[in-house]
């Protein structure tokens, strides 16, 4: 295996200082990672660590100050249809109906398709996300959850090789989020696209991801670790929490975000040169290693609550 599907090398983002003499502000530096084909990768980190910049750069909407991005041997240089994006604020075109919004993407992707083919293909994906009944409504007449489904349908319908999801469920309530996560898993299982997703929700990341990138706090952030999630697929929300490894992983992630993400930056002085984040499997770390708040593995019966490190996605955002 010579080349990864997507390869990001030594990416950095800097902004000029407030004054001419002030040093530039480095948001992140020396960020290198690979995405394998068909892989679902989530990236977690506190606000301001540059997650969105990395995502926008992959989408071609933003640029790194340094570093390179290569996808299938070709440099990523500007936006392209082989990379689909789902934005947090849905970014639907409000003057178009639900169907027209999806058609917009499909039409752009396959320019020589007939009107009927475009409509049929769009309808197929709207059905997958359960919006068959509301295809003639405008986005303003849809709930937040429905809008995000349209956005997901639009992105998946164009069959991009790499799908970029920027906190797609950030603005949704927990119940809606759960339903759409299941739908996302369903479509992803069907199409086996490579997905790169930003999230603030640890449970969401565990449910969806093959690997989770953990970013240290900005400025001067970097990807500290790549946590492997080897829970069996297909996963669903109800079953996954019963898996014996679930809380080990979860607590490891939460511990990183709450206790370690701030210190890592200060403690470790990065050596120069390219370095991929070390792969970590929390389950294999074992209790013997420094598992700070790891509870011993237990049967997932009563008393989940006490074992959890107290944490909500909100804490990250305001942290």
């Amino acid at each position, binding site marked *: 295996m010579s080349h990864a599907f997507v390869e990001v090398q030594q990416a950095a983002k800097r902004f000029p200082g407030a004054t001419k003499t002030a040093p530039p502000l480095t948001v992140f530096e020396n960020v290198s990672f690979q995405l394998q084909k068909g892989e679902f990768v989530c990236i977690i980190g506190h606000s301001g660590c540059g997650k969105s910049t990395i995502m926008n750069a992959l*989408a*071609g*909407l933003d640029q790194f100050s340094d570093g390179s991005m290569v996808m299938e041997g070709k440099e990523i240089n500007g936006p392209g249809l082989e990379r689909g994006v789902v*934005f947090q*604020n849905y970014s639907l*075109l*409000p*003057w178009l109906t639900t169907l027209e919004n999806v058609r917009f*993407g499909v039409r752009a992707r396959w320019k020589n398709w007939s009107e009927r083919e475009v409509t049929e293909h769009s309808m197929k994906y709207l059905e997958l996300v359960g919006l068959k009944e509301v295809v003639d409504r405008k986005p303003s007449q849809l709930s937040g959850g429905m809008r995000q489904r349209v956005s997901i349908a639009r992105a998946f319908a*164009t069959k991009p090789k790499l799908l970029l999801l920027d906190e797609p469920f950030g603005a949704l309530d927990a119940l809606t989020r759960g339903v759409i996560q299941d739908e996302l898993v369903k479509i992803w299982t069907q199409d086996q696209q490579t997905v790169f997703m930003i999230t603030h929700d640890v449970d969401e990341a565990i449910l969806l991801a093959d690997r989770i990138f953990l970013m240290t706090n900005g400025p001067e952030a970097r990807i500290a670790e790549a946590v492997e999630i080897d829970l069996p697929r297909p996963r669903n929300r109800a079953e996954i929490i019963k898996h014996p490894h679930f809380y080990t992983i979860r607590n490891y992630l939460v511990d990183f975000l709450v206790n370690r993400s701030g210190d890592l930056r200060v403690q470790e002085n990065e050596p120069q040169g390219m370095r991929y984040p070390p792969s970590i499997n929390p389950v294999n770390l074992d209790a013997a290693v420094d598992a700070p708040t790891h509870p011993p593995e237990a049967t997932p019966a009563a008393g989940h609550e006490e074992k959890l490190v107290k944490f909500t996605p909100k804490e990250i955002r305001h942290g």
Partner: protein
Amino acid sequence: MDRTTTEWNFSLNVRASVLAVVLLVLGLGIWEGLNHVPLLTGGAGELSEYEQLMAGANETAKVPPPSEVLVRAWEELSNPFYDAGPNDKGIGIQLGYSLYRVLTGYLLAAAIAIPLGFLIGMSPLMYKALNPYIQVLRPISPLAWMPLALFIIQDSEASAIFVIFICSIWPMLLNTAFGVAGVREDWVNVARTHELSSLKTAFKVILPAAAPTILTGMRISIGIAWLVIVAAEMLVGGTGIGYYVWNEWNNLDLTSVIFSILMIGVVGMLLDMSLAYVTRFVTYAE
């Protein structure tokens, strides 16, 4: 507007209509009462035309009462398109001339203002380069252009159209530029991630996104154009509703003056309503 069918709103509409009618009757009544030409008393014989105009024996002149205006309106509107020579044309013909000038100048202005506004809205360079000229040219009263237009174009008809053109271009230009510049970055990003060409982005994303703002500019422009045509035609003369008003003043026919004022209002309202109607089709809720 879904709630208009509720009983409360229905009764509001009814109450508003009743109040409007009451105000109309009251206003017309006062107008009629204050301005009625007193009946002749005694054997003074026939009044001269001057005395009639001056409201008979009364020292102060009276505005024609609404009853007279209504009679005149009926006469004029029952035969709006007669043409009995240069100084005696039906109200329909005069309004037709004015509308023709307004629409010609207005459409010419739209044909230039909307593409140019697009350019200014999309390019900060063009905006910065052209903005000083726009700021200087915009506050100029359109009628101030008239002498220059008459000299250069040497045709009163075309000069009137030019004046309409110059007065209606600015709101459309500025609103288009404003609307285009304000299109949400997210929507442009959607176009970019779908690899739309610049032309397709302009027509499929930016135009529909900016359309409500552009239409607002067009609506302001048509209002201004209709205001200005009356003054322009008073200057250039010959035909048109503005000329008609001034001509009837010269004829000392105040009844016709009042009638034509009302017609100017009605046509202006119809122009505005038609653009408001079009706006409904491009408006979107976010």
